[in-house]
């Protein structure tokens, strides 16, 4: 069990004078026993952060503490953590047993204890029958389990995962994701999980760290990340389909015109004359202009594309100056070219500063 604390952590490659920092001024605390995901696009610094926590990369400035003790000057093996790599990093010249036992033997754990821990871990992950096999004989899913077993057998205070599911096919990925969640519930160890897949982060995590270009965008629960995105980046990165983010300006009646179209949205408070407005496609509705008795000129736009998914369809509406996506149930009742009105009455409206991208109203 452990609490991880990052205090003004910074990482710059190629010395202090070289280029922009890969990671800038990260400060947050990962609570004891929590499952926290580092979420962001490629190159946002999430893997670098994980490597710094692991001790595989030095920090340029700041502090990393585990259970109140500074660890950033300790070697990786002295930090009491286990790491599951994206490519599993199983030693090809050792069989499964030796792969799992290697870290324990290096720590001079007694032979009987090693044996017991290896069997415990492999039994838990249902890979006991491949103990004598070399990694090359295993399927992707089995290798993944061996990598997990290696981490579990160590019984560390902290588990670090670097996109461990990204090499699995979709079906196996979903299954393993559920198993990971179960495993965390059983073991209760503090876990830090790097992913670029927002679905993985949302389903697995107690809290999520969203990063972009080396900076912390938001640290919060999945609920907060989804319903109260702190920045325009978080709003656009989390959620599928992507949130509609459009410029809006206040009209004479106090309502906001979206992207210069006829779509008007009422906003509580007074965020300013110009804002960036965010509306989630699944919270908006679509009404055929004719259905409400209006003429085509009352419509907000026309249907451009319909993408049926089975249980829902994503409808792209052409507002004129911009496109707007609405998720409707089933296959929908509209057709391409239909004039439609967008119903935003049930939607939570997010507003962001057009310059800084920060959230304006909670």
């Amino acid at each position, binding site marked *: 069990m452990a609490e991880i604390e990052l205090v003004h952590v910074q990482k710059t490659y190629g010395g202090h004078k070289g280029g922009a920092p890969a990671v800038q001024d990260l400060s947050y605390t990962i609570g004891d026993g929590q499952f926290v995901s580092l979420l962001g696009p490629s190159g946002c610094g999430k893997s670098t952060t994980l490597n710094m926590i692991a*001790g595989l990369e030095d920090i340029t400035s700041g502090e990393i503490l585990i259970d109140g003790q500074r660890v950033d000057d300790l070697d990786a093996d002295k930090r009491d*953590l286990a790491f599951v790599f994206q490519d599993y990093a199983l030693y090809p010249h050792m069989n499964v047993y030796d792969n799992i036992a290697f870290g324990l033997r*290096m720590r001079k754990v007694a032979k009987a204890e090693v044996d017991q821990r290896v069997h415990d871990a492999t039994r838990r992950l249902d890979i006991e029958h491949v103990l004598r096999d070399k990694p090359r004989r295993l399927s992707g899913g089995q290798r993944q389990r061996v990598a997990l077993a290696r981490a579990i057998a160590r019984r560390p205070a902290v588990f670090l995962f670097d996109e461990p599911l990204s090499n699995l096919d979709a079906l196996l990925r979903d299954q393993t994701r559920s198993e990971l969640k179960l495993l965390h519930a059983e073991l209760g160890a503090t876990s830090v999980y790097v992913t670029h897949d927002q679905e993985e982060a949302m389903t697995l995590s107690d809290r999520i760290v969203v990063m972009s270009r080396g900076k912390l965008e938001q640290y919060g629960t999945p609920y907060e990340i989804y319903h109260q995105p702190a920045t325009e980046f978080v709003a656009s990165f989390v959620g599928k389909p992507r949130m509609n983010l459009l410029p809006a300006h206040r009209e004479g009646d106090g309502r906001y015109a979206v992207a210069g179209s006829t779509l008007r949205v009422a906003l509580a408070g007074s965020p300013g004359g110009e804002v960036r407005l965010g509306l989630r496609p699944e919270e908006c509705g679509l009404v055929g202009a004719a259905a409400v008795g209006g003429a085509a000129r009352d419509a907000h736009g026309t249907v451009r594309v319909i993408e049926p998914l089975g249980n829902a369809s994503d409808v792209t509406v052409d507002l004129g100056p911009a496109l707007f996506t609405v998720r409707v149930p089933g296959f929908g009742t509209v057709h391409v070219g239909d004039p439609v009105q967008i119903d935003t009455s049930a939607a939570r409206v997010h507003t962001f500063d057009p310059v800084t991208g920060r959230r304006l109203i909670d």
Partner: protein
Amino acid sequence: MSTLTERAASTTQPRAATPRDAGRRRRRRLGTIGHRALVALLLVYLLAPFVWMLVYSLYPSSALQQASPDLNPGLLTGASYARLLSDSSFLVPMVNSAIVGISTTIVCMVLGSACAYAFARYRFRGRNALLLGMLTVQAIPVIVLAVPLFILLRAFGLYDRLPGLIVTYTAFILPLVIWMLVGFFDEIPPSLERAARIDGCNRLQIMIKIAFPLAAPGLAATAILAFITSWSDFFLAKVLTSTAATTLPVKTAAFQGLFAMDYTSAATAGVITAVPVLLLALLAQKWIIRGLVEGAVKG
């Protein structure tokens, strides 16, 4: 439905052979015959000198040194081998060659593997220049360096001494060893070494427990190459030794006198020199193939 089934059945039936097919098959067969004939010819061209050397070493010279050589199997004898292997003037160069070959290989592998690992894993200023510099050493003809080397070794009291040969061979072979090993170490995924760091290995332990076993086929092949190169060198050994540190190739060449030529002894010495090289080459081949087939470093 029945039409569909019939159509499906008709598509699975083999197509009747046409004259065009027969022509294609004939061309393919001719191609195969031609290819094999070429391989056989190449094999004869490559092996003939060695086979003739073997024949010379196993027959008495009187049977071969006549207008039509007498290859009666009854005349086969190992006398020449027995004579050479009990002659101290032959055994000493043989032991010298073994000492020089094995020592050079050990020194080259110990220094080369550590050096190559550093080149493969660390990015430091001047890395590429150093690697290129080592390659340049290989481009200099040995004959250009023979005289300076002779002067240097004599100045250091290493002329006609085994350490002199070992140092010289190491200087020539080490760059090649490093070049080869950098490639093998580069193949090892860095994540394996990071996993080893998490597991509690220091740099040296990572090299010994992870990198070396994974690069084993490469290490073995490189070591064999280093041994073969130093074992079979004639030129430098001829220039840098006179009597005490003479090696096998130099001794073999000495059977060719100014006025007399002992073909049988020369051939026997040639075979004895070639056997370890051949065996090691076969072994290296096995290692290299094993490395490729197992894909040891691919995980």
